[in-house]
C-alpha cells in the first residue's frame, strides 16, 4: 500500500510537468488549430535560462522561475511572429511541418552555442524528504505540484475572467466573426503563445531543479508525451490538458511499478493510438461535426 502511495506521488510530480506542457499545446491548438511541435523546445529554453541566471547572477529560485516565464513568453511570441504568422492562411499541414522545423532549429542552435552534453542544474533549494506514514515526499516534489496547480488556476482565471480571455475564447470559436466584433486576432494569437510558452518555461525550470540535469534535447520526449496528454484530455480543452497530463504521468509510473520499465514509453503511445481510434475528441473535448 505504501509503495502504491509512493508511486502515486512519483506519478503526480511527473504528471504536473506534462500538464504544464500540455496546456501550451492545447491553448495554441484551440486558437489556431496548430500542433506547435516546437513547444517542448521552449520548455528547454526555459530550463537553460534558469540555469544561467542562477549560475551566473545568483538569483533565487522564484526570480529564476518568473524571469524564465517572461523570457519564454517573448520567445513564444517571436516564434509565432516569424514562423507561423506568415503561414496564417496556408494549409494546416504547412504550419505543422514548419513547427517541426522550428523544433529542430532550436535544438541544434542550442547544441551549437551551448554544447550538447548534459549539465547539472544549480541546486538552489536544498532537498528535504518529509516522511508521512511510510512514504516520503521531497520539498521539491511539493514545490512542483503546488507551482503547477497555482499556474493552472491562474490560467483558468485569465481565460474565464479577463477581457483577453474572452477574446481568446471568441477567436477559438470563430476567428472571422471575432474579427468583425472588433477583436484583433493577431494580438490574441500572440497572447496565447506568450501564455502557453510561459507555462512551458516554468516547467523547464521546475524540471531542471527536480532532476538536476538539462540538455538541448531535453524537450523532445516530454514534448511528445505532453502532446499525448493534450489529446487524451481532449485537445483544445484546458481542464482536459491538466487532467491528461496527470493521467499520463501516473500511467507511466504505474507501468514501471509493475516492472515493465522497458515499455513505459510504448504504453503512452499505445494510449494515444487507442484514444485516437475510440475517442478522438478525448475526455473533455467537444464533439464537432465537420462540414463536408
Amino acid at each position, binding site marked *: 500500500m505504501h*509503495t502504491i502511495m*509512493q*508511486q502515486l506521488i*512519483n*506519478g503526480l*510530480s*511527473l504528471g504536473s510537468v506534462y500538464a504544464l506542457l500540455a496546456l501550451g499545446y492545447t491553448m495554441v491548438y484551440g486558437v489556431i488549430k496548430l500542433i506547435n511541435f516546437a513547444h517542448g523546445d521552449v520548455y528547454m529554453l526555459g530550463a537553460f535560462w534558469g540555469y544561467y541566471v542562477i549560475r551566473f547572477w545568483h538569483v533565487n529560485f522564484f526570480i529564476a522561475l518568473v524571469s524564465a516565464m517572461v523570457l519564454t513568453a517573448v520567445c513564444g511570441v517571436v516564434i509565432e511572429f516569424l514562423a507561423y504568422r506568415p503561414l496564417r492562411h496556408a494549409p494546416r499541414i504547412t504550419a505543422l511541418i514548419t513547427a517541426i522545423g522550428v523544433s529542430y532549429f532550436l535544438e*541544434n542552435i542550442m*547544441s*551549437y552555442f551551448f*554544447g*550538447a*552534453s*548534459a*549539465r*547539472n542544474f544549480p*541546486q538552489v533549494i536544498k*532537498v528535504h*524528504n518529509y516522511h508521512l506514514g511510510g512514504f*516520503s515526499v*521531497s520539498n521539491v516534489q511539493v514545490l512542483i505540484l503546488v507551482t503547477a496547480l497555482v499556474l493552472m488556476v491562474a490560467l483558468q482565471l485569465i481565460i474565464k475572467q479577463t477581457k483577453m480571455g474572452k477574446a481568446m475564447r471568441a477567436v477559438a470559436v470563430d476567428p472571422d466573426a471575432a474579427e468583425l466584433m472588433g477583436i484583433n486576432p493577431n494580438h490574441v494569437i500572440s497572447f496565447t503563445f506568450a501564455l502557453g510558452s510561459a507555462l512551458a518555461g516554468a516547467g523547464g525550470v521546475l*524540471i531542471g531543479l527536480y*532532476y*538536476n*540535469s538539462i*540538455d538541448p*534535447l*531535453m524537450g*523532445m*520526449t516530454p514534448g511528445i508525451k505532453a502532446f499525448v496528454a493534450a489529446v487524451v484530455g481532449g485537445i483544445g480543452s484546458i481542464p482536459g490538458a491538466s487532467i491528461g497530463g496527470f493521467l499520463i504521468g501516473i500511467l*507511466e*509510473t*504505474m507501468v*514501471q*511499478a*509493475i*516492472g515493465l*520499465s*522497458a515499455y*513505459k*514509453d510504448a504504453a503512452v503511445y499505445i494510449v494515444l493510438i487507442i484514444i485516437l481510434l475510440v475517442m478522438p475528441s478525448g475526455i473533455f473535448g467537444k464533439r464537432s461535426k465537420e462540414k463536408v
Partner: protein
Amino acid sequence: MKNFKKIATATVGMAAMMMLAGCSTAANSSKKGNTASGNTIKIGVNMELSGAVAGYGEQQKQGIELAVSQINSKGGIKVDGKKYKIKAIYRDNKSTTSGSASVAAQLVNNDKVQAVVGPATTNDSTAAIPNVTKANVASVSPSATDDGYTLDKNGKVQKYVFRSCFDNSYQGQTAAKFVTNTLKGKKVAIIADNSSDYGTGLAKAFKKQFSGAIVSTQYFQEGDKDFNAMLTAIKNKGFDAIYAPGYYSEVGLIVKQARQIGIKTPIIGSDGMADPKLAQIAGNANANDIYYTTPFSTKSADTDTTVKSFMDAFQDKFGTEAPTFSALAYDSVYMVKAAIEKAKSVNSEDIAVAMAKIKNMKGATGTMTVDAKHNPEKPIAIEQMNGGKVEKAITVK
C-alpha cells in the same frame, strides 16, 4: 552464366592481387589505399557532432584536438627521415548511421585521408565499415564497445576496423567478478540502458558471468530523467548491489534518485559513468558507494606519467577535468601515430597492417596491445567514488 564467369575470374584475379600485395615487403610499393602527399598526414574524424549523442562526440573531438596539437607541436611524425604534420578533418555524421556511411565515403574518397578516427557509437561505426574497407583505410573507434564490432558476420576479423575501448563482455564480466569477489554481493538488480548496444551488451555479459541471483532487470531509454517509479518498484526486492551499465547523464540521475528514496546499496557501472559530471548530476552527498569499471582512471595519474601529462594538458586546454571519452579519442589518434611509425609508411593500407601489430603503446587509458581481434588489451580498473570524489582505483587483473 557468362557474366558469372567474368565475375568469378575478376574475383580470383583480385584475390591474387591482394595476396601479392600482402607478400610485397617494400613499404611504399603497394598501390592500394590513400598515400599522404606533401608533408601532411590527414586523419579523418567521422564524429557525432550534432544530434542525439553530440555530447559524446564533442568530448571525443576535444581529445582528438589535444592529441593532434601535441603531436604537431613536437614536430609531427617522422617517417623515413621526413617529418609530417597531422591534419584532422572533422566531419559531422549527425548521430545517424546514414550520415556516418556518407561521411566515411567523403573522408576516404574525397579528402583522401590516411586513417579515420570515430564514430563514437557502435551503430554509427558499423555503418562506416563498408566504405573504409573499400578504400583500404583503417578506422579506430574510441567507443564502439559491441563485442562483434571488429568482426564480420562469420566471426572473421575486419581488416580495417579497430577500437581503443574495451568490448562489452570484458567490462561486464569484470564487474560481475568484482561484485562476487570484492563486494560479496549475492543478489543484484540490473538497471540498463536499452537504447544502445552498449547498455544491453553490458547487461548481457554481466548476467552471463554473475554467479548469484538477479532479482530484477529494468530498462531505461537514453534521455530519461525520471527513475523514481522504477527505483520505488525494486526497492524492496532485497538486493545487495545495483548494476547500472549506461552513461553518466542517466546513471547520475539513477544514483541521485536511488539515494534520495533511501536505497543505500553499492551501485556498480561501466566506463560510460567515468565522467566528472556524474557526481555533479548526482550531487556529492548522493555519490557514495559508487563503483565503475574503466580503462582510464584519474587516480592512476598519481603513478603514471603518460596519464598525468594528458590530464594536465587537457585541463590547460579546455579548463575541465578530462572525461573518459576524450581520453579514448586521444589514444585513438596515438594509435594511428604508432601505426604510422611502425609501418614507416604514409600509405593507409600499410598503416592498417601495422596497426594490428601495435604492442605496449603507452596511452592515457593505459598501456595497450592490439590483439588478434583488433581489441586493445589493457589493464582494467575499478574506481570507487565516495562523497562525489574518486577515492581509489582498484586494478583488476
